[in-house]
């Protein structure tokens, strides 16, 4: 029986593992992959101490930091967690583990547009990761859908690669950071379309265009790539019968990141924090690990 099982290999889980290792807790961290969502981001400019760093590079750095502490890593996917008496039973595809506490730090996955053509053209011009697939659209026309920080970062990155970038914003103003928006407003390759929604993604074998709905009516745009950056949904399927989720599906926690289930903590993007930021995930991971340590010490 472990003191703690951390589920999730993004920054929240990794930070929790670093703190748990320093407290010499008997624990494992379970995740199919390590690095988290930040690895899919072209670059990061709001991590204190790093003015500008590649997302993958930063993810690699904190993964190496965790590994240097001889953390016990289990590369697997958690399918179910149950509470039996005082202990948690954590099932993965391959094994079953038992623990006195759990930190759930699975983060979230990208949200889909749910429009006709999206499913058909996934990987055929529709992508959710500009960092991954952006270079394939060199010299082509693309639309970035979503004007939060992710969409803005994608649009800036794509303007360096593509011939023309449409930024499709459902709101009348840009909601992402002003410092990012400024880089786009005077960018000749970028055309921002406000108050617009995607009606349909069209194509044959690959994407050939989109139809958008604006207050002025429908408009067809010919293009080869659609980069969807419209937010995330939390990953909670294996714990949906165990903890309280808020109406949007995020996990509710107290100040020490413990859920209403004693000994069950949550950290990072899966938590109903008002902001989803790298430093907040790190902070959550730290608080949850120290919270779990205190919880065990007080018993």
């Amino acid at each position: 029986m472990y003191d703690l099982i951390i589920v999730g290999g993004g920054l929240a889980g990794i930070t929790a593992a670093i703190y748990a290792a320093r407290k010499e807790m008997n624990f494992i961290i379970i995740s199919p992959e390590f690095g988290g969502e930040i690895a899919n981001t072209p670059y990061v400019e709001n991590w204190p101490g790093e003015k500008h760093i590649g997302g993958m590079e930063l993810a690699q750095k904190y993964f190496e930091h965790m590994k240097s502490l001889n953390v016990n890593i289990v590369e697997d996917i958690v399918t179910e967690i149950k509470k039996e008496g005082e202990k948690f039973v954590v099932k993965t595809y391959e094994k079953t583990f038992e623990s006195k506490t759990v930190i759930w730090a699975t983060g979230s996955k990208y949200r889909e547009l749910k429009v006709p053509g999206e499913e058909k053209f996934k990987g055929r011009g529709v992508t959710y990761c500009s960092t991954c697939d952006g270079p394939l659209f060199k010299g082509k026309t693309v639309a970035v859908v979503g004007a939060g920080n992710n969409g803005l970062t994608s649009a800036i990155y794509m303007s360096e690669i593509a011939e023309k970038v449409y930024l499709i914003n459902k709101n009348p103003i840009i909601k992402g950071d002003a410092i990012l928006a400024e880089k786009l407003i005077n960018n000749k390759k970028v055309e921002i379309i406000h108050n617009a929604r995607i009606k349909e993604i069209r194509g044959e074998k690959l994407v050939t265009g989109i139809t958008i709905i604006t207050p002025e009516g429908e408009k067809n745009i010919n293009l080869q790539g659609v980069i969807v950056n419209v937010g995330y949904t939390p990953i909670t399927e294996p714990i949906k019968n165990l903890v309280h989720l808020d109406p949007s599906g995020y996990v509710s926690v107290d100040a020490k990141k413990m859920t209403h289930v004693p000994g069950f903590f949550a950290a990072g993007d899966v938590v109903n924090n008002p902001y989803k930021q790298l430093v907040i995930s790190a902070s959550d991971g730290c608080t949850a690990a120290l919270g779990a340590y205190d919880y065990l010490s007080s018993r």
Partner: protein
Amino acid sequence: MITVYSTPTCPWCFRTKEFLKQNNITFKDVDVSRDRAGAMEMIEKSGQMGVPVIDINGEIIIGFDKERIKDLLNIK
């Protein structure tokens, strides 16, 4: 013959290549962000505009599908 079609910035490509290296498997790495002909070859083989695409002796794998890669290469 194993070919990985990738871009230098793609984390899943990085993970795919690391996984192959850890298992001592030699492969040809085609950087589709620079190699236009390589990119066209990838799209033709897979019908995909997304990376990574892995060609293991003619079997096309889309994305870092670790289980399928393990299966095809007899990695335990």
